């Protein structure tokens, strides 16, 4: 021991100062690590917080039950017990993640197009977004099976307003209802005034329009409108929408869920939105969520994409093969490798909502182009829907799980950017259409 101390201190003078410096360095490291490991968690100010599995249900002003998990909105008048994690509502005005960007060349655009062998036949894809232009030719026939909205509740049952085509009335009835609500309250119940939801739905399951067709044109859409016409939603609205999907997974046999939005909560996947999306994934649904448009910077993965069971999707430019400059990089704050995959997300041409102000593509008012990890997520969902058809034919009879089977398939066939390990820029690589 004396020898060790002598070697640290050196043989000449200054041994004590060196030991002091070493002790200080250890102390600083210890304080830094302790702060990172144990962030303050007691709620010391009044306000609104969201909690997962609260210690007492009495603190909740609203709850969402996802199986054994309870999510709680708490209007706090007194401090929470120390150790209870919470998320403030102020951080949760959640945006959709697509924006108009001129294609670099007017003739080169990514046409969402599956290979054609599998078209999503018999697969139901849930889309939580800004609604849909249900009169668009890309969704003619039986493309949409049900539409729900969290913006309005039925006066009689108190349930969220929903519309089942062929059950609740004709298209004229729907339009009358929607326009009436818009005239009184300023927001359509189902129609997409923003344009994001229609574009995303078109990429996934759009029927052919002027040579453009979605990845899974025979899939059916389960639309849940959770976002206002300005493209934002509160935490409540998003949780309501996810609860609707959760409750209808079995009834509608939902196999894919598209979440082209997110909030930067610096979460490790334990925030309420991520937990809710994760609970849906646990039911065997392929849940795709946008990694984020926060730029090529680390630790920028949004919720719910941060959840371990939710597949985070980043964007690449299909023209150049480069990672899109807006695409968020991982890792998550708890250092898990995200995004999981990347796929085309720059200048994607798809359906344009007639109620939106989006710029028509080459003068065609039925089509428009958008860029973002939203679009990449929709491409991933389309690929997921194609795969779900294949899975139902060949994998499900063998008792294999859809999510595990999809991951195994993609891990084997993705175009890898990093050939040696899953990294925080492109994850496993570019998703492969089946």
């Amino acid at each position: 021991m004396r020898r060790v101390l002598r070697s640290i201190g050196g043989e000449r003078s200054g041994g004590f100062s060196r030991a002091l410096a070493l002790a200080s360095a250890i102390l600083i490291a210890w304080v830094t690590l302790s702060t990172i490991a144990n962030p303050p968690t007691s709620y010391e100010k009044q306000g609104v917080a969201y909690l997962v599995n609260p210690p007492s249900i009495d603190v909740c002003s609203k709850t969402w039950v996802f199986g054994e998990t309870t999510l709680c909105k708490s209007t706090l008048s007194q401090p929470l017990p120390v150790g209870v994690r919470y998320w403030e509502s102020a951080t949760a005005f959640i945006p959709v993640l697509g924006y108009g960007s001129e294609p670099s060349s007017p003739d080169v655009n990514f046409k969402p197009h599956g290979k054609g062998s599998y078209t999503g036949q018999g697969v139901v894809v849930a889309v939580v977004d800004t609604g849909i232009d249900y009169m668009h030719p890309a969704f003619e026939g039986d493309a949409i099976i049900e539409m729900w909205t969290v913006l309005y509740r039925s006066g009689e049952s108190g349930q969220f307003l929903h519309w089942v085509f062929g059950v609740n009335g004709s298209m004229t009835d729907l339009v009358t209802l929607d326009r009436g609500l818009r005239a009184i309250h300023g927001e359509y119940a189902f129609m997409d005034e923003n344009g994001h939801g229609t574009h995303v739905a078109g990429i996934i399951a759009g029927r052919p329009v002027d040579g453009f067709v979605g990845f899974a044109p025979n899939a059916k859409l389960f639309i849940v409108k959770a976002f206002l016409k300005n493209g934002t939603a509160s935490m409540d609205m998003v949780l309501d929408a996810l609860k609707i999907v959760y409750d209808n997974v079995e009834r509608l046999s939902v196999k894919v869920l598209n979440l082209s939005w997110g909030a930067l909560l610096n979460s490790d996947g334990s925030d309420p939105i991520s937990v809710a999306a994760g609970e849906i994934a646990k039911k065997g649904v392929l849940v795709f969520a946008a990694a984020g448009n926060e730029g090529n910077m680390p630790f920028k993965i949004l919720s719910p994409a941060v959840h371990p069971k939710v597949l985070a999707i980043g964007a690449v430019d299909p023209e150049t093969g480069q990672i899109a400059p807006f695409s968020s990089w991982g890792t998550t704050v708890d250092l898990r490798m995200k995004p999981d995959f990347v796929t085309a997300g720059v200048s994607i041409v798809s359906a344009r909502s007639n109620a939106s102000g989006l710029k028509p593509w080459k003068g065609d008012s039925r089509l428009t182009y958008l860029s973002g990890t939203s679009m990449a997520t929709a491409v991933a969902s389309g690929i997921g829907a194609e795969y779900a058809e294949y899975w139902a034919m060949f994998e499900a009879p063998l008792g294999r799980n859809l999510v595990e089977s999809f991951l195994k398939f993609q891990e084997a066939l993705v175009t890898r950017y990093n050939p040696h390990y899953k990294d925080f820029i492109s994850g496993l690589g570019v998703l492969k259409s089946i």
Partner: protein
Amino acid sequence: MIRAILVVTNMISGFILLLLSVVWFRISVLATLILLLASFDQFEDVYFYVTGRSVFPRVMAGLDLGAEILQFTIAVAIFVLGASYVGRLENTIMPYLTMLAGLMVAFSSLYDISMIFSGKYGYGGRGGVLSLEEGFKEYRRRTLRRV
């Protein structure tokens, strides 16, 4: 000149390892301790190249070697990451810088490994051996004499 390069590369790799150790704390305390040790080892190497004295006693040479091997593995991962994204990012410099960082860390770890076997723990005289060739010659000579 070589001494200056070694000080710089060891400092950089020390900071990279320190950063990694901090961010790994939430996942694994054990990994943090290992990375912290590897980081400390880099700063210890800086001290060695500046003063010619080692902080570690001779009995801890094995631990020093383990930390250097860990550092080399991390260096390879950093290099692979950079090489994978050449031409894949809008920022063309970043992948090359990442590769350069990987090479620096790898060089630093390899040189330090050579020092462990040559002069660092008194085999070749205190701080006297700063050449790979001489170090290995000395190591071989002493090993053969022992045999």
